[in-house]
Structure formats: structure tokens, C-alpha cells
């Protein structure tokens, strides 16, 4: 992370390339792109210090449309390549854009280790629960029963929950948003960027062609308010059209229940207050999903620690200081030598 105040005031246009955007009309990726192009100037970052690294997939086309540095790499490997970028130049702001297949299938190992190491990357996982680019096969996040060209009778394997994968891998910033959530997505990007260390953001992204409406149970306008909960640190976990529903710990258990404020003697004081520094709470909140619970969005977990590349350089600097300016010839002549004349 590197906040700079560029001399010139940049706008959305300055972060847009002249390349024609090639996603299907109506794809959720457009909204995410626009939001990023809009939010980066607000963050005050410079274009030259910003790098977008992606793997392969529809989502991974993202860098071509950002007027920053961009590296469209190979399937699943973006976190590894981005780690190398950070090791070479920790001053760069590095964003990783990846799909659910890219991040969790072929690239699961790299994502796990980038999170565990806490490399200062902003990782955006565009989760459309499908392989878009390869024409609609089910993915590791598809819910069981997903019918796709490779699972014509429905998939039978259990999906992975990306946020829980991230938490389990040791991520210290885990957030969730929706492609259409233009209101809170900028804040999520801003906070992910500000976070020192790996930030993990899952974005529910609608693939209008191969998986249209998979998230409609909590993103459709009529149900959204009752099916989404925007978690805010230090505030009670309240949701609903009337802002009268909340999450409460079932007495004597570690399980949550949905309660209605003002009914059966429930008051705001009974509602669980979001603590973004609690890993346990993060695990519980990320498990919830409609229809019995709301889908929890927002910054679910944030507990910063020193980042990998920072510690690498700290160690490196201390060794360099101790050894002083090196002399190659003297280095080679260390140990047992003899002279032939």
C-alpha cells in the first residue's frame, strides 16, 4: 500500500483505457470495473504505482481496461506473480483480479499461501459460481445440483465458501460485496487498499449468460433488504426493510438466530455487535446464507499484522547493515585459498 498525492487530479477517465470492453452485455463485471475506475481517483493513488495482476477467465480481462500497469498472466497463478511483483518493489499498489475457478480451483494453493504469508495484495475474487470463459462448466463455488455442460444431471460435490477459505488460510482482511452494490463497494475497495497485508474481497458477480440469477435470492431488489446484512464494526448486526431484524447468539450456544426487534421482548441491546477483529465471529457470519439467514456483506474481518514483503525487507536491511557494502572479490576469496605463481 502506498498512498501518494499526485500533482494532477485524476478522474474516472484517466483510469480507463481505450480498449473496447469485451464482456457480454449485462455482465456484472462492468459494474465492478466502473466502480474501480471511479474509486481509484478518490483514493488519490497514482496510475504508475498501481498494478493489476490477473489470471485467466472473464474476470481476468480486467487489467486491459485499467489505465495503470497490468499483467494478464496464466490460469490460477496471479497471486504468485503478484507476490513476485511485491518482492521486487514493495512500494507498488498491487491488485489481484481473479475468478472463482481461477482462485479456488487451479490457483487454490497460491491463494492460500498469499493469504497465509500476508503479502500486501488487494485480492478481488469475482465469484459467479461458474466457469464463464470456458462456456459455463460448474465451478468449485457452484452449489450442489448445478446443471452445466459438464454436469448435465447436476453437480454432486460440495462447494467451497471463498471467505471461509480465506479465513482458514489466515487472511487478516475479509470482505464481501455485490457487483451491483455501487454504494458500498467503493468503501470496500478503499478499505482493502488501506489495509496493510493481504486483503481478500469476494464480489458476488452475476454471469448473465451461464449462471444468471444465482444470487437473486439476496440481490433482487424486492428481497435484498431482507436478505442482506451490511456488517459495520462496532454496530449491532441489524438488517431488513424496517431495520428491525437482527442476529443474536442463541443462549448457551455458538449459533446465531434471526430475531425481530420489538417482538418477544427483543431489544437492540440483545443484538450481537459486529467485532471485525474477532475471527470466531467472522467464521460464524460467513457461514450464514439465505433463506434462513441474511447474506452478510461488508468488512467482516480485519485484524492487521505486518506484511510479508515488509518483513522480508526488514530482515534484508538488517543483514545489509551488519555486513556493509559488499566487495565481490573479497567475498570470493573468503575461506581457504592458495596462490599459484
Amino acid at each position: 500500500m502506498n498512498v501518494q498525492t499526485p500533482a494532477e487530479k485524476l478522474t474516472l477517465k484517466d483510469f480507463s483505457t481505450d480498449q473496447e470492453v469485451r464482456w457480454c452485455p449485462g455482465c456484472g463485471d462492468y459494474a465492478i470495473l466502473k466502480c474501480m475506475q471511479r474509486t481509484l481517483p478518490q483514493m488519490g493513488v497514482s496510475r504508475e504505482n498501481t498494478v493489476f495482476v490477473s489470471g485467466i477467465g472473464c474476470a481476468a480481462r480486467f487489467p486491459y481496461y485499467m489505465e495503470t500497469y497490468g499483467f494478464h498472466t496464466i490460469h490460477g497463478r496471479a497471486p504468485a506473480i503478484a507476490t513476485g511483483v511485491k518482492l521486487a518493489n514493495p512500494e507498488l499498489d498491487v491488485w489481484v483480479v481473479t475468478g472463482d475457478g481461477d482462485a479456488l480451483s487451479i490457483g487454490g494453493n497460491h491463494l492460500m499461501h498469499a493469504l497465509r504469508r500476508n503479502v500486501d495484495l488487494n485480492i478481488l475474487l469475482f465469484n459467479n459460481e461458474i466457469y464463464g470463459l470456458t462456456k459455463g462448466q460448474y465451478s468449485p463455488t457452484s452449489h450442489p445440483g448445478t446443471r452445466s455442460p459438464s454436469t448435465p444431471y447436476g453437480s454432486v460435490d460440495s462447494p467451497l465458501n471463498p471467505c471461509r477459505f480465506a479465513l482458514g488460510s489466515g487472511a487478516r482482511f475479509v470482505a464481501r460485496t455485490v457487483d451491483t452494490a455501487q454504494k458500498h463497494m467503493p468503501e470496500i475497495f478503499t478499505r482493502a487498499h488501506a489495509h496493510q497485508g493481504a486483503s481478500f474481497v469476494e464480489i458476488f458477480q452475476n454471469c448473465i449468460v451461464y449462471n444468471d440469477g444465482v444470487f437473486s435470492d439476496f440481490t433482487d431488489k424486492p428481497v435484498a433488504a431482507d436478505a442482506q446484512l451490511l456488517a459495520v464494526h462496532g454496530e449491532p448486526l441489524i438488517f431488513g426493510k424496517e431495520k428491525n431484524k437482527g442476529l443474536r447468539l442463541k443462549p448457551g450456544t455458538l449459533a446465531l438466530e434471526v430475531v425481530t426487534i420489538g417482538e418477544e421482548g427483543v431489544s437492540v441491546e440483545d443484538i450481537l455487535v459486529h467485532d471485525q477483529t474477532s475471527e470466531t465471529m467472522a467464521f460464524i457470519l460467513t457461514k450464514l446464507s439465505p433463506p434462513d439467514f441474511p447474506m452478510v456483506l461488508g468488512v467482516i474481518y480485519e485484524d492487521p499484522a505486518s506484511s510479508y514483503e515488509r518483513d522480508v525487507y526488514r530482515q534484508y536491511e538488517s543483514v545489509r547493515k551488519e555486513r556493509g557494502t559488499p566487495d565481490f572479490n573479497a567475498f570470493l576469496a573468503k575461506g581457504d585459498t592458495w596462490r599459484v605463481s
Partner: protein
Amino acid sequence: MQTDSETGKNLPTTGDVESVVIRFAGDSGDGIQLLGAQFTTSTALAGSGLSTFPDFPAEIRAPLGTTFGVSAYQIKFGARKIFTSGDQPDVLVALNPAALKVNVGLLLEGSLIVVDTGTFVERNFKKAHIEADPLEDGSLAKFQVLKIDISRLTMEAVKEFGLGNKDALRSKNLWALGLMLWMFDHDRAPIIEWLNRKFAKNENIRDANIAALNAGHAFGETSELSGDMRRYTVGAASLEPGLYRTVTGAQALSWGLAAAGQLAKTPLVFCSYPITPASPILHLLAQMKEFDIVTFQAEDEIAAVCAALGASYAGSIGVTSSSGPGIALKGEAMGLAISTELPLVIVNSQRGGPSTGLPTKTEQSDLYQAVYGRNGDAPMPVLATRSPGDCFFIAVEAVRLAIKYMTPVMILTDGYIGNAAEPWKLPDFNALDPIAVPHVAARPSGAEPFNPSVRDPETLARVWAKPGTKGLEHRIGGIEKSHETGHISYDPANHQKMTQVRRDKIAGIAKDIPPQEVDFGEESGRLAVIGWGSTYGPIARAVRIARSEGHDVSHIHLTYINPFPENLGELLSRFDRILVPEMNMGQLITVLRDHFLLQAISLCKVSGQPFKISEIIEAIHGQLSLQAAE
């Protein structure tokens, strides 16, 4: 067939010898590698030429006393340049029955065997599946056998230090070392100095080890008086003047990479995943942070090559290193490096394959993988190291080519070169050519949009634009790019053009590398022996011997395998016959044939052991006599 010291000769009864091969062998817990390495130091300091071959067991700690737990270290040293670690040992030091059993087959009649009789007991015979005591059953009759109870003598020597039996016996290797130092008249002082350094924090162990070393030495002296033991002197080799040290291939390669970074004034980011026999390079570079080196132990080989490429993209010199199985995993990312035209160095320390193969044994069987092993038309320069010291210069050259041509470059080395040691004349860093790094400069705002596809008309290298540089924002990736703009392009004619440019760029390197020379012998003639990589030593020596016998044979050794030097085809055409010894089933010969439609003869060996000089001499004789008969 004329014999030579290389092809089998026993030690004379006493006095000066031209060269000697000693093989130290024992249980993996006996400290054989350390014993060998210290004997090597003393040999180097005595000014002899030398070459070593550490022969590790595959198991880390095999059960004590078993044959598969035997560790060995072979050294050949002499009063001239030594090319190989020797075909047959003249002296075998066997610290247990298993070590004798495993190694006795290597010896010629009359060789000297030194055994630790203290270990020749029933229990150890059982572990090594030995039926009868070989010291008693007459099976060693054709050798000279020195039976010494090294175990007991070591325990006596270290008694005053109050160590338990087990700890006391740990000094056995130093006792044996002391005896060998005496036998070959080497100085003990540098070894004692080394012990002082190594055990500075544990005086008791240090003193016990020194006592054992001295006791072994004294044992030689007393036995000589009684006429039981002979002593030899191997003179100094006449080497080029200069400051020398011993170096292993892994050291020279690591130092070469570090030197290249310094010559390019650019940081090196070295990314690797542990694998035998490549790991020592990671270990060595991790200790060299003062040379602007960041090392990264990645989660796997794919991550390692990707991180190295990411580092190169960001303006550092990305280097990754592995062995065959790991190189296989790196293939896709190498293709990305080729497509995005970024510098990258990939080091392959080859081992026996396929699959896990023989991790601790040597082979040269990844040549096809290096030259052809990627999807698409994906040409990449390939360089091969021929000896430990050579690794330094190859590493520098690989970095130079990678940067100058904006391409991944593969270095083929192998487990034998990586672990073997030889005397090395230290290069003068200040005399090495600097490596130019053409990072594109920042542009003022309002300038023309930056075009990342601009090429140097000479080298065809693409520009290297470092993130963080104002005005150079651009996008690259593995999808085909327009030759003109660098933007994604699916245009058929453009792909044809880009594929040709990638081919021409790598082929053009041939103009930038030295023409192929004949390593030894004439520029034309009846027979050329052509090799690459670590077969250098045995071929060099074999050809020298054959020529001294009066045969018309020359040695050509390749450093550049892709592209070949421009004159190679013409040079080879000047020989009636071409012999290609390789530690694989004939990979270089296929590539040569592919380029030059060459009728050559293959000499293959895939036993996990380097070629013997005698094997190559025999093939030379065979080819020349066939030719005579024709």
C-alpha cells in the same frame, strides 16, 4: 589398449605418484562427506589438481549399517589438471562392512583398502546381509588390506574428554582423515583451524576432534617406522598463476548469479521450491542478501517461476531453480515469459528421471525438455555448464542474454556438477563486463501513449518498462499481441509475424555468442567427440589420452545448445565421424541431427554415475578401428 593412470593403475609401493583416487565410504552417520570435503581442502592447499564426486545415499538417515545407508566421497588429485573424480579408486577407506561391500566392486586388483576392523562384527554383517567376514574369507586376497581398529583407536584418543561411546565414535572420520593426511603428506593446520572455527562454542568436542585427527596422523608415523605403511607424495599441478579456492557447481552458480546482479546493478529475486539436487543454490543465495538478493521459498515450483517472472516484470532479475520434475511444472509460466518477452533465468540441476527417478544420481536427460518442452512455438536459449567453476560464467552469461534479449534463458547443470568440487582460479569481478539494463525512462504527462511493443531493431528485444515509472502504464499478457501496438490481437497474419519474430530473436543470439571452438585436438580429422554439460571431464581426459596414443581425435564441447553457435554445422562437417557421449538415451544427437542432418554415433549411459574415462576411450578406439576397417 594402453593403460594410463585414469584407466586403472595401482599405487606404487612408495614415493611420488602422478595422481591418486581415494574413495571414502562409510555409514551415512559416519561423517563421510565432511571427511571428504576436508581432505579436499587439504589437497587444494597442497596445490594439486583435483576433482571430487560426493555420492550420497538417497535416504536421509538410513538404518545404521545397511548397504543403502552407505555414503561415499571420491576424490582424484594429481600433479596436473584433473578432469574427473577418477574411474577406479586406488584407495578405499571403508568405515564399516556395508561400505566395503558396496564399494569393493569398484576396485582393481592390487588396490589399497583401509578398513575399520572395529566394525567388522556379526551384528554389522547381518545388517549389511554379509554371510562371512570378508576380512577372513579370502575374498580380499587380490587387494592390499590395511586392517586397523579405527573405532577403538578413536575411542582411546578421545578418552580424556569424557564423551560417551557414541559421541566418541563421531570423531572416527577425523581419525581416518588424520591417517590419510599423513599418507599423502598433507598439512593438518588448515583442518585444525577449521575445527577451531566450527566448534568454537563447544571446546570439548573441538578438542576431541583435534585429538582424533592427530592420533590418526601419529598412527601413520609409527606404523611407517615399523614398515607397515607407505607414504606418497603427489606434487602440485602447474596451474595458471592466480588466487585459487575449491568450488562446487552450486557455489559457482550462486555466485555467478549474484555477480550478474551486481554487474547489471539490478536486484536479483531468486524464487525456488526445495528439490534435490537444486536446493543448495537456494541455501547459498539466502545467505547473500548484501548483494541485493531477495530469496523466496515458494509453495511449489509453479509459484516459484511465477514469482520470479513477477519480479522481472517489476524490474528485478527474476531467477528460478529446480530439477527435472519441478522444471516440468514451470513449463506454462516459461511460455508466459516467452510471450510477454520478459527476462527470466531458469536453472535446471538435472537428476535421473523420468518422474522422481534417481534424485541423488546424475543424468543429462532434460535436454529435450529444455529445448522443446513447452506448448506452442516457444523458443528459448539453453546454456549448459561443463564443470563446477564454469557455472559462474554461465550464470553471468544467462543473465546477460535474458536482459539483452528480453527472454527466459535456461541453464542446464546437473547433480554431479552441483556437488563436485574443483580448484578454481578466482575471477576478478572488476574485470567482468558490466551488463546494460535498458529500463525505459519516465515520460512527461501529455506525451504520446507508451507502446510496450517497441523492439530494438538489432536484437529484436522488446522494451522493459518498469511499473512505478510515470507515463509507461501499459498492459501485457499471454494472449497474442499486436506486433505494432502490443494490444491483444487475434489477427492471423499478426500471429504468423509474432511467431517468426520470437523465433528470429532467439536464433539471432547465435551472432552474439562466441563461435564454437575445438576444445582439444585439430579443427578437422577422423573423429570428433562432441559433448555438452558434465561429460566434459571424462571426454577431455579421454581425448587427451587417445591423442597421446597417436589417434586422430578431437574434442568439441557445447556451451550453447540453443541457439547453436553459427559455425557449428560447418565445423562438424570437417570430421569423418562424430561420437556423442551423453548421460541419456541420445538427446543431443537428435538435436544435432535435427539441425545438421548429421550421421553421428551415440554413446549413452544412464546408470546414474558419470562416464568413466575408460568407457569413452574404448568408444574412441572402437570408432577409429571401425573406420580403419571400412
